[in-house]
């Protein structure tokens, strides 16, 4: 029988499967029992099935910095993460509320009157000094104000089990393909685990996204808009996902040179000639999108694309300039933005964040940097983060000097003891820290995709869950209301 370890009693983190006394939480009772019946060899065998399937199907990501262009299979942990129906309903409402407010904020900045800045909710200088603020997007409206069609909101659970928002990803959040492939892999490797639960399906993403993308097509596009996904190409780390989404939606997967712009209309180069494009779901960053407007050395983009976008003949999703709203420096203001635009109390709280350009907050943070998490606002993928309690005195001194030199570029967050869940490590299931990235789709309305990508730090004690830094993932089950295990059983 495989040993299923709960968190140490003195650990601060919230263990999702076991309570403080070491008893299995009701939500996890059936799955823990089922896993307890497998010995380590059996779990390894099933892990092998998943690994082999991922390799055969080419479900991989490319490792950057590797001259061989190595494709690594996506690491998936066997033990699933469960979310109860009632719990999910709360998360769902919270996410829809948050993304709605963020889209309102983006519309306010780029096509509105800048009301939130004028009313002092967010300092105008902070918005305009953001690397993500894009002058080229000024005056470019998006149907339904869906600046962010696809959002990935990173959630963590604190020591009390409360979900909190760690980061918003409003530019090019990736990972949805792994959510769907994880479910398929779980089904192949553990065909009987579904007997105990009714789980919300995940196969409908392609349809959901396509409907949203169709709804943001320009008015001249007719009822069958031509949608394409713009990828940097096969060497991009997320190429698998780009191809997956094109297949799931039934749209063309294009690279920059496949598109050409003439008189502010974007065309697709086909063997039959040039065909006008209505919606571009781009998976390349703003700065590579159009060498005329941004980086002239970009070979990934399409010359003249921004002109077409400004002329309103094509919709680019997510919209250009979204980076301003997911700037880590803006994050602390999002709860106020929810109150401001929607007149509602935020359902999901933020991870407590201190802004370094406020002298009081900065000085208070300097007093206890070794207890905090220091983040550069412009990085992603877990890069550049200093976790105070693991840092040397020298690293802390360096961080302090960098903050003093450019306070706008840094935020400091309270440590959240990310929740843990049993994960396969060697031959035992040990608790490992995890987060959750649900995906929120906005077209005519805002919808939350059930579950999301659970990322898990496979190194003991590590809080860094990014796949580029050795993190894995878990299949994430949102239980359907009728399938919920009654409390107390």
């Amino acid at each position, binding site marked *: 029988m495989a040993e299923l370890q709960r968190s140490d009693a003195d650990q601060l983190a919230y263990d999702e499967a076991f309570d403080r006394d070491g008893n299995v939480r009701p939500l996890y009772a059936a799955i823990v029992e089922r896993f307890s019946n497998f010995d380590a060899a059996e779990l390894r065998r099933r892990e092998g099935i998943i690994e082999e399937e991922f390799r*055969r199907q*080419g479900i991989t990501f490319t490792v950057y910095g590797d001259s061989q262009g190595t494709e690594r299979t996506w690491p998936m942990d066997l033990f699933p993460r469960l979310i109860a129906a009632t719990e999910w309903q709360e998360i769902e409402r919270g996410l829809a509320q948050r993304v709605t407010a963020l889209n309102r904020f983006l519309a306010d900045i780029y096509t509105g009157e800048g009301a939130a800045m004028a009313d002092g909710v967010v300092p105008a200088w902070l918005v305009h000094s953001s690397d993500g603020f894009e002058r080229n997007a000024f005056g470019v409206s998006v149907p339904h104000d869906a600046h962010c069609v696809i959002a990935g909101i990173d959630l963590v659970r604190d020591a009390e089990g409360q979900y909190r928002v760690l980061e918003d990803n409003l530019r090019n959040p990736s990972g949805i393909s792994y959510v769907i492939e994880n479910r398929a892999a779980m089904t192949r490797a553990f065909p009987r685990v579904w007997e105990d639960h009714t789980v919300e399906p995940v196969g409908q993403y392609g349809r959901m996204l396509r409907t949203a993308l169709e709804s943001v097509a320009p008015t*001249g596009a007719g009822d069958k808009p031509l949608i394409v996904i713009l990828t940097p190409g*096969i060497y991009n780390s997320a190429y698998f996902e780009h191809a997956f989404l094109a297949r799931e939606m039934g749209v063309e997967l294009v690279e920059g040179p496949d598109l050409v712009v003439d008189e502010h209309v974007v065309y*697709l*180069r086909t*063997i039959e*000639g*040039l*065909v006008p494009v209505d919606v571009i779901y781009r998976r390349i960053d703003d700065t590579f999108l159009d060498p005329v407007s941004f980086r002239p050395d970009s070979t990934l983009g399409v010359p003249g694309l921004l002109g077409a976008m400004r002329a309103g003949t094509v919709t680019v999703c997510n919209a250009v300039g979204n980076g301003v709203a997911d700037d880590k420096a803006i994050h602390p203001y999002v709860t106020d933005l929810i109150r401001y635009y929607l007149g509602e109390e935020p359902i999901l709280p933020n991870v407590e964040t201190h802004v370094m350009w406020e002298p009081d907050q900065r000085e208070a943070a300097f007093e206890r940097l070794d207890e905090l998490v220091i983040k550069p606002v412009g990085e992603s993928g877990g890069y550049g983060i200093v976790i105070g309690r693991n840092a040397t005195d020298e690293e802390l001194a360096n961080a302090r000097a960098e903050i003093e030199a450019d306070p706008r570029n840094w935020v400091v967050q309270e440590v959240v003891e990310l929740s843990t869940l049993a994960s396969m490590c060697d031959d035992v299931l040990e608790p490992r820290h995890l987060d959750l990235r649900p995906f929120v789709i906005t077209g005519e309305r805002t919808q939350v995709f059930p579950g999301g990508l659970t990322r898990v730090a496979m190194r003991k004690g590590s809080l860094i869950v990014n796949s580029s830094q050795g993190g894995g993932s878990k299949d994430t089950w949102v239980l359907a209301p009728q399938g919920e295990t009654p409390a107390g059983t």
Partner: protein
Amino acid sequence: MILARHADSLLWAGRYLERADTIARCVSVETNAVMHRQATEARLASRRLVQALGLQDEFVAAQVGTGPYAVMDFLVSDDSHPGSVVSAVQAVRENLRIVRDRIPVELWEEANSLHILMQSAKSVGAAAREQTGGEVSRMSVITARRGCRSLSGVMTESMSRDEGYAFMEAGRLLERSILTVELLKSGLGTGSDVFDGNRLLAFTHSLQAARRELGHSPQWHAVAKFLLQHSQMPRSVLWCLGRVELRLQDLAAAAGAVATARRRAGALRAHLEYGELDELLGQPEAELAYLGSALAELAADVHTSTVARSSLAEVHAQFVRPGDGRGRPQ
């Protein structure tokens, strides 16, 4: 509707698939022969095969060893040149990877699985492969042949007969025709390394079918007629060209740029179908040289037809919207 770049990838995926299949088959035939021959003789014949496959330069550059299985290894597992089975399979996989969103999932998975298997044989290393008496390469050949058949089956049974299929099939059949003509050349002459009729038929997967018509010891001339002009044999150049012409005809309806290639395919098909082949084969070298270059030009034409016309002057005249055929309202 198909992207020009995707059409090109499918064309090349088809060509490389045929190439991997043909080289693996030739090596398989040769390997059986090697075991029954003196080393020097076997090596000479293998060199002739290298020549027939157009890999002389790569062979010299690769400094292939002198062991009895070195040539086979060069043709199967050596990825330092693009002409080996392992390289061709990799090229199939890379081209299909570019279009993996539009081809059947199974087609991609078969190509990916075959690539992984071939890479694992490659990773053994040339010296170790030689030590096994060619065993590793022999297994790779079996794997490659099974894999190619499987790919071919998925392609035939699961792919929509759309433009993508047309390009992939055209690629396969053109490559097959080109290789058939090159292999036929290696049966001309009088040296001890010249392939006999049965060997040529085995290389082109036609031995069984030809035996019923030509008997057990067919002469080169009869084999050449069979492989060039047979109307029902999917390995014959005439049969291949007939299919290529049909595919190009489908494409030309929508893509005007294919018209040139279609005309050339038709002319070449007519040359084989209605030409006096007996007379033409009176000067076999000249006729094969003509066919070789005509097929190469045809392949180049098909490739060119996938290159998108980017002249913006054409935009206003001919852009189309799938479904309603109308342009964007101004």
